[in-house]
C-alpha cells in the first residue's frame, strides 16, 4: 500500500467505527431516556402503554400504607393533583410524609403508578431539584427557611 492508501484505510476504518458508535448512541438516546413529570403534568402528557417515566412530588400526608411484607403504597402530590404509587422494597432513609420524592416506573392499567425505584432527597438542605423546580413552576413552592 502507498502512504496515501494506508492513511485512507485508517481514516476509513475510524469513520465506519465512529458512524456505528454514533448510530448506537442516537438509538440509545431515543430508547433509554425517561421523562420527568409532576402529577399535574400527567393530564396533558401522552404516554405510550408501559412507557417508563419518573414521577416526582411530595409524599401526600396520611397516604403511606404498608401492606404484606415489603409492599408499600403511597400517593405523590403537587398539592393539587395526586397519583397513587405502589412499590415493593425498602424505602430510602429520608422517605417521609410531605417530603419530596422521585419515583421511577410505569403506569398499571388501573392508573396506579408501579415504581421500581424511589429516591428521596440526599440531605436536609434541599428537595430533589426536579421537584423543587416543578413546585416553583406551579407556584406551590413553600420555602421553609
Amino acid at each position, binding site marked *: 500500500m502507498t502512504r496515501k492508501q494506508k492513511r485512507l484505510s485508517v481514516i476509513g*476504518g475510524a469513520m465506519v467505527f465512529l458512524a456505528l458508535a454514533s448510530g448506537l448512541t442516537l438509538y440509545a438516546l431515543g430508547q*433509554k431516556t425517561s421523562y*420527568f413529570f409532576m402529577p399535574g403534568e400527567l393530564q396533558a402528557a401522552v404516554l405510550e402503554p408501559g412507557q417508563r417515566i419518573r414521577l416526582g412530588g411530595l409524599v401526600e400526608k396520611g397516604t403511606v400504607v404498608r401492606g404484606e411484607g415489603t409492599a408499600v403504597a403511597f400517593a405523590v402530590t403537587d398539592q393539587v393533583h395526586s397519583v397513587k404509587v405502589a412499590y415493593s422494597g425498602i*424505602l430510602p*432513609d429520608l422517605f417521609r410524609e410531605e417530603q419530596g420524592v422521585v419515583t421511577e416506573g410505569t403506569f398499571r392499567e388501573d392508573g396506579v403508578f408501579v415504581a421500581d425505584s424511589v429516591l428521596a432527597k440526599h440531605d*436536609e438542605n434541599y428537595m430533589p431539584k426536579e421537584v423543587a423546580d416543578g413546585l416553583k413552576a406551579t407556584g406551590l413552592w413553600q420555602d421553609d427557611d
Partner: protein
Amino acid sequence: MIVETGHFALVLAFALSLVQFAVPLAGTRLGDQRLMAVAGPVAVAGFALTALSFAALTAAYVQSDFSVANVWENSHSLKPMLYKVTGVWGNHEGSMLLWVLILAFFGALVAWFGANLPATLRANVLSVQGLIGAAFFLFVLATSNPFARIDPAPMEGRDLNPILQDIGLAIHPPLLYLGYVGFSICFSFAVAALIEGRIDAAWARWVRPWTLAAWVFLTGGIAMGSYWAYYELGWGGWWFWDPVENASFLPWLSGTALLHSAIVMEKRSALKIWTLLLAILTFSLSLLGTFLVRSGVLTSVHAFATDPSRGLFILMILILFIGGSLALFALRASSLTQGGLFHPVSREGALVLNNLFLTTATATVLIGTLYPLLIEAVTGEKISVGAPFFNLTFIPLVMPLLLAVPFGPLMAWKRGDLYAVAQRLFAAFGGALLVVLLSFFFVDGIGVLAAFGIGVAAWLMLGAVTDLALKSGIGSVGAAVAWRRFVGLPRSVFGTALAHFGLGVTTLGIVAVTTLEVERIVTMRPGETMPIAGYTLRFEGIQPFQGPNFTEEQGRFVYFDAAGRERGAIMSSKRLYTARQMPTTEAGIATRGFSQLYVALGDPTSDGGVVVRVWWKPLVLLIWLGGVVMMAGGTMSLLDRRLRVGAPSARRSKDVLKPQVAAE
C-alpha cells in the same frame, strides 16, 4: 487571628499566582533569563502560602471555632477528631481550597523536579499553571470564601452531613483531586508546547510521568469513591452512571488514552498533535467535572449548598481555558512537525486503536451526561439518561477493546505480524475458552453472556501473564536465563502487564456481581432464618446503641455455612444523627474470600418484624482490587529508568535491548 492569617495567605497566594503567570511569560517573550527564573521560587512560595491557608482552616475545624461560618455549617463539637479534620474538605468552600492546594502543590513539584527542563519550557509551563491558579484562587476568594465569619458566634455547629462521616472522606476526595488536578500539568505542558511552537520526543518523556501519576491517583480516587458509595449508601450498588460519577470517569477514560498515545509519541515521534489535543481534552474534562459537581447543576451527595454565581464563575473559567487552549491549538497545531508513519498492523496501530475506542467511549459517556442538561436548557423538559443508556452504548464499545488488549503489548513497533502474535496468544486463548466452559457448566445460574464475560476477564489476565512470559523467554530458554531476563525486564513492561491484569480483575468482579448477584428482600422477626447463596442468615434482634453524635438501632445477624457451622455475626443498623435529625442506613457486611454478604435494615413492620434486604455479592471485592492492581501497574511504569530524564546513558542501552525483546 489564625483564621484571618489563613485568609490573608490565600489572598497573597492569589497575587503570587498572577506574578507566576505574567513574569515568566514576559521573560520567554523577551528572552530574559532572570524573568523566567522567577517562576520556580514563586510557585514554591505560592504552595507554601496555600498550605498555610489550608492549615488555618484545619485549625479552625479542630478547635470547633463556630465563629467561622464554614465550620459552623459543617462541624459539631462532639464530632470525632478524624471527621473534624476530614470535614475541612467535606463542604464546597473547603473542597475548593483543597483543589487549589493540590494545584499549587503540582506547580511546586514542577519547580522542584523541573531543573533539567529547558528554561523556556519550564517558564511557560509554570506560567500556564499560574493562570489556572489565578482563576481558581479568585473563584475561592470571590464566591466561596471558607474564612467568612459570623457574629455573634453560635454555641454549637450544625454537624457534617452524616453520609460524609466516614473514613472514605479522608481518602476519596484527596486522591480524586490529585488525579483531576494532576492532569493540569499535562495541560500546561501542552499549552506551553503550543506557545513555543515546538514539540519533540523529549516533551513526551517529560509529560508521561505526570500523566501516569495523575492517572494512578484518579484510578484510586474513583475506586475508593465507588467502594465508599457501595458500603455507605446501603443500596448495595457500586456504580450508578450518575452524572457525578461520570464526571470523574470522563477524565479517566481520556487520561488512559493519553497515557497510551504518549508512548507512541515518545518511542516513535508519531501522534504528536493528537497527544497534545488529548492532554488539553483530559484536563478540560477535569474542569468540566469540577463544574458539574461544584456548580450545583446536578443534584447529588456531592452538590453542597448551591449558589448560581458560583456556577457562572466556574463556567467562565471553563470557557476561558477550554476555549483558549483549543483556539491556540487551532492556530498553532499545523506549525508542529508531523511524526513518522507506521503500518496499521503494528504496536503504534494497536495504540491508535486503543485511542479510537477510548475516545469514542469518552464521547458516549459525555453525551449521556450532558444531554439531559442540554435538553432542559433548550426545551425545559426534564429527562434522565441512566444505566440503560450506558449499558447499551458503553459496553458494546468497550468489549472489543478488552478483547484487543492482550494483542497490543506483543505487537512489534513499525510493522507487526498479527498472525504471529495470535499464535503466541494461543495458550491464553485456550485458557480463556476453558474458563468459559468451566464456568458455564459448574457455576449455578450462569448465562451464556456471563460465562463469556468471565472468559473475557480470564483472557485479559492470561494475556498479561503471556506477555511477561514471552518477554522473559520462559519455555524457550533455560529457567536460569529466563529468570535473569524476567528480573531485567524494563519496569514499564511490568507496569503494562500489571495494569492490564488489573483491568481483567476488575472485569471479573463486574461480570460476577452483575450476573450472579442474589438479592432478597424479606420481613424477619427475631429468631427467624433465611437462606441465601448457600448460607443461612439468622436475625437475632435489635438493640439500641448510643454513639458520640448519633443514636442507632443495631440489628444483629449471625450466618451459617451449608454445613450448619456458625461463621460470624453481622451488625446492620439504622442511625439517627441527632444534630441534623438525619437517618442513615449502616449496612452490615461479611466478607467471604472476595465475595460479600451485604445486609441492610429497612423499616419495622406492624407484626414486630423488620424489612431486611440481603445481597450475596460474588467476587465484588475484585472490582476495587483490580483498581489497586492497575494503580500498582501505573506506579511500576513510573519507576522505569527511562522516565527519569536525567539518566540518558542507561536509557540508550535499554533502547538497544528493546527491539530484540519485542522481536522474539
